[in-house]
């Protein structure tokens, strides 16, 4: 069942383009990554789905219902973690969390406490006195305390220290295992790679590609690095090899094809180090950013 369905969604801010003719769907239980350069339209898409802004044309449905018409009702089960977190002046953390909880029909107190402990929140400090990262943590708890079925994450880990980042991802994975669908917008490709099942790429307002992460990586090249004495790069000039170069005593290349051919070549010489890895999302998609 599609949790999110977007059909030819377009948004113009006056004459400036927001997004153009964007269509995709997100299935239940997926972690869907949404990546693209700055200004591509990632936030615009999320804001349209949350009916913070209204489309110029096209539509979006969540849980099968139009996201604008049924907005308030749908948001009972939606959690939103925006990229920048601001709260009311002089409000304490615990006050904000309780205020947030008061909007939902369920009893959130237990979950609230659990999350607050997990993210190590200082409940009785004023939000405005917190550091950026700590504010983010408040934002995370605020977005999750009502146990929503769908999560919108907009650059969620910016500002978190590595330990917190790990905890956060752990949290997301756990939620996902319980059936929560996650829509994850980021331009930290490493994160997306670690977490997502499918990925959509948006650039200059249009969807460039939507694909499964595994498929993308498998259909892609392997990165090979071989370090050996007196190694000539031409030794590895095989069919399926590209970007062959020699650097500092190491030969590197990308290879697509039967890996055994490469293994044979390596086996025939004495090497000091061999590395064969899958390309990162970054390497696959860098050209999309250009």
């Amino acid at each position: 069942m599609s949790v999110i369905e977007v059909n030819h969604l377009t948004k113009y801010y006056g004459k400036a383009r927001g997004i153009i003719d964007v269509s995709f769907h997100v299935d239940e239980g997926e972690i869907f990554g949404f990546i693209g350069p700055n200004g591509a339209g990632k936030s615009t898409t999320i804001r349209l789905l949350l009916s913070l802004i209204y489309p110029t044309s096209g539509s979006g449905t969540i849980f099968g219902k139009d996201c604008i018409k049924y907005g308030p009702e749908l948001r009972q089960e939606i959690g939103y973690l925006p990229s920048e977190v601001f709260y009311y002046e002089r409000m304490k953390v615990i006050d904000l969390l309780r205020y947030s909880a008061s909007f939902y029909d369920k009893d959130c107190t237990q979950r609230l406490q659990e999350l607050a402990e997990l993210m190590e929140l200082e409940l009785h400090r004023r939000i405005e006195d917190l550091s950026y990262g700590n504010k983010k943590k408040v934002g995370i708890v605020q977005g999750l305390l009502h146990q929503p079925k769908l999560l919108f994450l907009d650059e969620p880990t910016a500002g978190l220290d590595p330990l917190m980042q790990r905890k956060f991802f752990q949290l997301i994975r756990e939620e996902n295992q319980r059936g929560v669908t996650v829509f994850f917008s980021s331009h930290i490709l490493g994160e997306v790679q670690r977490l997502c099942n499918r990925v959509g790429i948006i650039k200059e307002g249009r969807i460039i590609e939507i694909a499964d992460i595994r498929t993308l990586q498998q259909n892609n090249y392997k990165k090979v690095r071989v370090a050996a004495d007196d190694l000539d790069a031409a030794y590895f000039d095989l069919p399926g090899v590209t970007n062959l170069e020699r650097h500092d005593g190491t030969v590197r290349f990308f290879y697509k094809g039967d890996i055994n051919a490469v293994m044979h070549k390596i086996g025939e010489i004495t090497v000091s180090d061999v590395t064969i890895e899958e390309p990162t999302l970054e390497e696959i998609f860098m050209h999309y950013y250009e």
Partner: protein
Amino acid sequence: MSMNIFKQEFKMNLRSVITWSVAVAVLILVFVSLFSSFAQDAELLNEMMAKFPEQLLTAFGLNGVNLATVLGYFGFVFLFAQICLAIQAANYGFSLVSIEEREWTADFLLAKPVGRIQILTSKLLAALSGLTITNIVVWISSFGFINLFRGDRTYEAKPLLLLLLSIVVFQLFFLSVGLVVSLLVKRIRNVTPYSMALGFGMYVLSVFGDMLGESILEKITPFKHFDPNYIIQHGAYDLPLVLISASVIVISLVGSYLLYTRRDIPAVV
């Protein structure tokens, strides 16, 4: 209407409400306490005013006013209270929704499972409740201080009552106009110049209105719709003018709802 939003908004406004209430109460106290020294020159005053050209009287809001009487004097000084009440209500109106965008809390509130209509209604009611508290303070202090300082002069209760009740609609005017204007403007960085412009602007219009386009300008400003001197003298409201205020309020409120439900909430950039 969402109770939790209402409570939160009301709490956030409370400090301001108390400040304004105290300020207006003090203002009334000071002016009313000076009544006796004024009334001493009562006879002189009345003779004087009989001789004034009408334009001078209107310019100082004294046309037909008997400053020697309790209500005549009060009606005159009430103008200052009205200016304060106008600015207060205008403040609330202009910042009602714009504060979410100024403090960037819109992403929080508007991603909650509440519709825009509910949000706006809750905020409006919270602002109104705050204003009502101020109004109650004004009523109590007016009655209280008048009775304290009037010496042995008497006054009619009805015109005073009408005058005091009029501030409700008076403030609604500024609240709703402030609100609708804030939704028409792209971005409000500082509310103070706007509310001062609306509050003082309407006051200036009332004072100088008779100079420019005559009645036209007078019809616009609520300072004329709820002219204290008029109410005191006639013991009644100038109904056609009050209706103008009422229609402005209705149009502004309807407009505000329409604008707010369609508004694109910009992201924190």
